[in-house]
């Protein structure tokens, strides 16, 4: 299976790269020169008309959207998440979509606060995003504390662990004070992410991209 990941270091494509490394799937990285406008080129828009990374070129054509790629990998390999006939599949999908459309979207509003309503309203947009992020991480914390799902656990690597790990990395590092999150408020999530970041696959990616020894729980640039 020939796989090409359109990638830039420490972007959302890193989430997919972590899964590919964990699965030990051979793949090629196609580095996207984002500042040089690579994502707007006609060639790239043929791969991903939305113009974002990641995109993964597969034998069945290109696939984009971080969570879509993660799920495609789970279904292709039978690993890192429950498959279609697993009784846990419904709950896993619920939280994968939630992470994609609620947690990830709120994180983007935090990192690009001019997007919702212009530069003049960036502070208000950031404050609103912060409240959403804390509430949504709180739901994930409660999920882990009360249900210990196998698909978001310190004992088994999962695509959702890597996805949330990269999001928390950015949520600790990037927001201006006082909006950075403190993972100590989410102890069960902290345990899950600490287990993921210490795996050999995560360590390899972290070393290559310069993410630090604890890329999810004590991130550095």
């Amino acid at each position, binding site marked *: 299976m020939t796989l090409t990941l359109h990638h830039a270091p420490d972007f959302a494509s890193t989430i997919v790269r972590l899964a590919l490394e964990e699965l030990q799937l051979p793949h090629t990285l196609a580095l996207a020169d984002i500042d040089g406008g690579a994502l707007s080129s006609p060639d790239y828009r043929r791969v991903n*008309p*939305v113009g974002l990374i990641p995109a993964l070129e*597969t034998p*069945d*054509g*290109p*696939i*984009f*959207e*971080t*969570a*879509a*790629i993660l*799920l*495609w990998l789970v*279904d*292709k390999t039978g690993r890192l998440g429950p*498959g*279609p006939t697993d*009784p*846990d*599949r*419904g*709950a896993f*999908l*619920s939280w*994968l*979509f*939630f992470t*994609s*459309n*609620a947690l*990830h*979207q709120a994180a983007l*509003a935090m990192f690009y606060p001019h*997007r*919702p*309503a*212009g530069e*003049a*309203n960036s502070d*208000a*947009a950031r404050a*609103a995003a912060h409240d*959403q992020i804390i509430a949504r991480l709180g*739901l994930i914390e*409660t*999920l882990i504390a009360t249900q210990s799902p196998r698909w978001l656990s310190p004992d088994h690597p999962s695509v959702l662990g890597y996805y949330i790990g990269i999001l928390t990395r950015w949520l600790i590092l990037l927001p201006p004070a006082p909006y950075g999150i403190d993972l100590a408020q989410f102890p069960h999530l902290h345990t899950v992410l600490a287990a993921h970041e210490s795996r050999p696959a995560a360590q390899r990616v972290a070393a290559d991209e310069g993410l630090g020894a604890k890329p999810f729980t004590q991130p550095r640039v």
Partner: protein
Amino acid sequence: MYTLHYAPDNASLIIRLVLDGAGLPYRTALVDRKSRQQDSAAYRALNPTGLIPTLETPVGPISETGAILLWLADTHHLGPAPGDPDRPVFLKWLFFLSNSAHADLRQIFYPHQYAPTDAHAGHKEIISARMNRHFALLDAAAARHPRLFAAATPLGVYTVTLTRWAALYPDQGPSWFDLAAFPALTALARAQEARVETPVIARAEGLGPHPFTRPEQPNPPEGSVL
């Protein structure tokens, strides 16, 4: 037997159209938004986000519109299965609908969650321009993959229902969305309206005689939209 927790003209409508389109039996359970039943302990036990819909299944409750659609598709063969060469197309547009089109449209429904009141006009302008770009991408995808975006299918129903809300909201001020600008989506709206289940559901939720080609404000016989 499934139980669909719904409110009229909420995202549960998408699930209902797909369930009925596939002939899958289910019960409905009205979530009374007027009394904020979605915040009750009983509902939050099913779905801690408090959002509608939730589908109760023999393997437990499933929340998130996209997750329910994908689970139904895989369980009842309503879309390309894992391993099918169309699976990447199906998954990428399903997630795009969920985290970009639906998430941005939600900003138009609930601007106060995203911007201060005096910025709502500018917010609407920015988000509606973004939404029209999303619809242009969906129109092109639907033209290229007509079978995957057909009426009654997960991607078709999700897309066409978002066009309905785009035409209706916000309910004050000039409209920002013109279905006629998107030929594949216009054809999809006509096809969805021609399905036998559509008028039945439209009556049950008060969506009017042309819920997709000429949407009007909902007037539900029971329950509350907001």
